[in-house]
């Protein structure tokens, strides 16, 4: 069981959270984007082995979204930060 530090509620068990996948994926303008750019937005992911910026939702708590940097190898959280902010630690690419 992971212990996840919600920026608003503090440390809680993983079972209260929903995972939201890779963070910082910007939606291209559908009017001007081509199929390849749209496919990358929808489906293609960095899927890094190492520090990963990702979204979480405190689904059974305050129900708010936030970002986190987590190591995908040992699952340790390195930072949590608000939606719209840049990762406070360097992430793998």
């Amino acid at each position, binding site marked *: *069981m*992971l212990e996840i530090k919600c920026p608003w509620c503090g440390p809680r068990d*993983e*079972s209260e959270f*929903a*995972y939201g*996948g*890779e963070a910082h994926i910007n939606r291209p303008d559908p009017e001007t984007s081509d*199929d*390849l750019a749209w*496919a*990358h937005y*929808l*489906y*293609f*992911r*960095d*899927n*890094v*082995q190492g520090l*990963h910026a*990702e979204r979480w939702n405190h689904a059974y708590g305050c129900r708010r979204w936030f970002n986190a940097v*987590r190591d*995908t*190898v*040992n*699952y340790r959280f390195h930072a949590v930060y608000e939606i719209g902010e840049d990762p406070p630690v360097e992430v793998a690419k």
Partner: protein
Amino acid sequence: MSNRRRQNYSAFSLFTQGMSHHKHWQKAWRSPEPRSHYDVIIVGAGGHGLATAFYLAAEHGITNVAVLEKGWLGGGNTGRNTTIVRSNYLQTESSDLYDKSLQLWEGLSQHVNYNNMFSQRGVYNLAHTPGDVRTTLRRVNANRLNGIDAEYHTPADIRANIPYINTSPDARYPILGGSFQPRAGVARHDAVAWGLARAADERGVDIIQDCEVTGINRDGSRVTGVETTRGTINAPKVGVVVAGHCSVLAEMAGLKLPIESHPLQACVSEPVKPVLNTVVMSNQVHGYCSQSDKGELVMGAGIDSYAGYGQRGSPRVIENFLAAIKEMFPIFSRMRMLRQWGGVVDVAPDASPILSKTDIQGLYFNCGWGTGGFKATPGSGWVFAHTIAKDEPHPINAPFSLERFVTGRLVDEHGAAAVAH
């Protein structure tokens, strides 16, 4: 170098070797030093990689092949799955692929002269809600239209085959029916890897363990080989078959894949006498269970929700699927668990695999099998060998290209494939 004769495994050879206390068996495969050049390099000596190498040699006469493995042969997801083999997928594209695989399973032990203990004991996929029943009936009918054996069983039919399953209408999620595929079943996963390795080695394939690929070399838009922990190895064609680590290999070639890697967990109980003679899967309460030939109950469910390369997951997932198994089989409530483990699975957005050429000439990817790759082991190798040998996909795997994510022609098997992915 090709066509080394191997001892034939038979009842007679078992008897004669027994006369000398089993001291004179040949090694099942060699451990050669890597050469500097091959016609084809396969990255990953799991079931799919070994099957690819085997069919390259057996079907296409390409024997100057190296299979590179960073750890030991069959030590990844091939040795970590719950060994279920079935082909009752909804979509026609999936039916063609998985049933080709099932047909190959039916002759695989003879073909490679290695008993992989393939046991066609059938697979149940249970329905617990009226919606479940409708989608199950739809899938049974779709399977039959595609020539795949499928039966719809009522709770009475299910109880007749599995007397102690909880078909009480008072259950939290009562069993309202289920599909049954008689040709489905289980196989011994280690033996599958060992048999394919032995048969590929016999035909001249070099299987090189403890050899991690650290880079993919290119000359412009052509692949020229790989960098490894045991030096540079050149080849005009490289097939990557590394399941959960496919994005890591893709990044070495400057590619990005529509894949997320997740932990998938399973566990086995202490061994008990024969009690379950088929495979039972439930999407709704979310657990599946079979009994191995050793007597252990083999159990699993879905992925951990978060991305992870750690080959382990969270205990709450195990707790959830054990609760589901206990709900279906109250008789198992006192069973003790013997082992629990995790693997890293490569999940694609449509829960269908990628068997594809790439933008780089000579570089091929076989990935995206997610939670259901074991059943496809021979079929995956068969179509991927064709793709590499001919430099174009076989009609069976043409729909499973990388381009489908750009064109939008997904093969959507999420929830439709009889179990949640």
